[in-house]
Structure formats: C-alpha cells, structure tokens
C-alpha cells in the first residue's frame, strides 16, 4: 500500500471547492449549516432545518463546524459570507432570511417540488 504525501497534508482550496461542487451536484437539496439536522448549533441553521423539514424530503446537510475546510471554502464558493447556505438543484438560494421569505411566498415550495422529482 503506498501513501501519497497529500494524505498527511491539508486539503487544498481547489480540492475543497471540488468537494463542495460534488455535494451540490449530487444532492438536489443540500444545506451547509452549523451542527447536524438533529442538533443544529445555531438559531439560523435551526430555522433552515425547520423549513426544509416541513417539506418532508430527505435533504442533505453538511456540518461546517465539523469541517473547517468547507466552513471557509463554501463562503468563497458561494460568494456569501454567512452560514447556513441552501442549494436546490445546484442553484444557490441563500441563507435563512431568504428561505423564510421564499417559504412564506411559496417560491421555495415550488423549487422543492422540482427537486423532489430529481430524487425519485
């Protein structure tokens, strides 16, 4: 078994970006948040989970508190300075403030319906 030097070094920003891209591509609904779905560690991340939970879909969540590379990388990737961050069908939607407003006006529900079709 051979080890590449990279095994013992930090992930490069390029690799992190790739990892984030894969997460966004492979999951129709993915939220980058603080904590997990079961145990959100921030009021805003909790709000995001509550909203997504109301749609009864199996959304993917990424705990940035457990992944420092993603915590900084996703802010650069999305050009958005705060967590949580929601992606639906590869498109960046925004943070919890936007989610609340889009949830209330029905826009988010429409997007989630389309994403559900992708999950089948």
């Amino acid at each position: 078994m051979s080890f590449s030097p990279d095994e013992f070094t930090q992930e490069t920003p390029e690799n992190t970006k790739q990892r984030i891209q894969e997460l966004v591509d492979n999951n129709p609904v993915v939220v980058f948040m603080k904590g997990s779905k079961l145990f959100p560690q921030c009021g805003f991340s909790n709000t995001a989970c509550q909203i997504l939970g109301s749609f009864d879909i199996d959304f993917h969540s990424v705990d940035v508190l457990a992944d420092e590379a993603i915590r900084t990388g996703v802010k650069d990737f999305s050009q958005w300075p705060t967590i949580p961050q929601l992606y639906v069908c590869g498109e960046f939607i925004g943070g919890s403030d936007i989610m609340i407003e889009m949830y209330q006006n029905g826009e988010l529900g429409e997007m989630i319906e389309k994403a559900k079709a992708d999950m089948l």
Partner: protein
Amino acid sequence: MSSKNGSAGGGPRQNLIEERLKDVFNPIHLDVQNVSHGPKSGESHFKVIVVSEQFEGTRLIGRHRAINAAVSESDGSLGFHSLEIGAAKTPDEWNINSNVKDSPKCAGGDGRGMKN
C-alpha cells in the same frame, strides 16, 4: 429618511454599517440593530432593515448580496459574526407589509455556548 439605533449612540461597527448602507442604498428607511448575544460592545451580531428604491425590479438574492457586499470587508468576509437581514424591501413593498420576522435564538454555534 428615518433611522434608529438599537443602542444609544452605537459602537464603531454599528456606525460603519449604517454609513455604508446609507451610502449604497440611500434608503427611505434604515434600521440597524446590535443584537449581539454577548456584550453589546462586542458588536458581533447585527440585524438590518433596508427599504430602498434601488431594490425595484431585483430578486431577493440580489438584494441580500448587495447588502452583504455593502457591509463586508474588502476580502468578502463580514468582519463580524452574524448579519441578519430582517427585510430588504422597496418602498411599495414596505408600505404593504412592514412586519419583520423575529430573530431565532442562539444555539451556541458562535462559540459562546448554549443560551436559555
């Protein structure tokens, strides 16, 4: 233009946020609140309400990006822990509905631990 501070006087960060938002949006209504979970002097958490004609014809994501950009450092980072955008509306939208949602409670994710 009306504007009110969350605390008397406001600290340097709060003043900076207000100045930047005024410069960029020339809002008809602006409210910048220091909602920091720790001491207010830490100026770590802010909630803003911006009502401006410049939002006409723009989508919510664009409005939020513009607000983020206005208050952020040159490297794109916020410079403080959390920015909540209570509302980013046009004057017409604000006249129809000026209710602003309540803020969620901290759950410790900013490193200060759980609060009741």
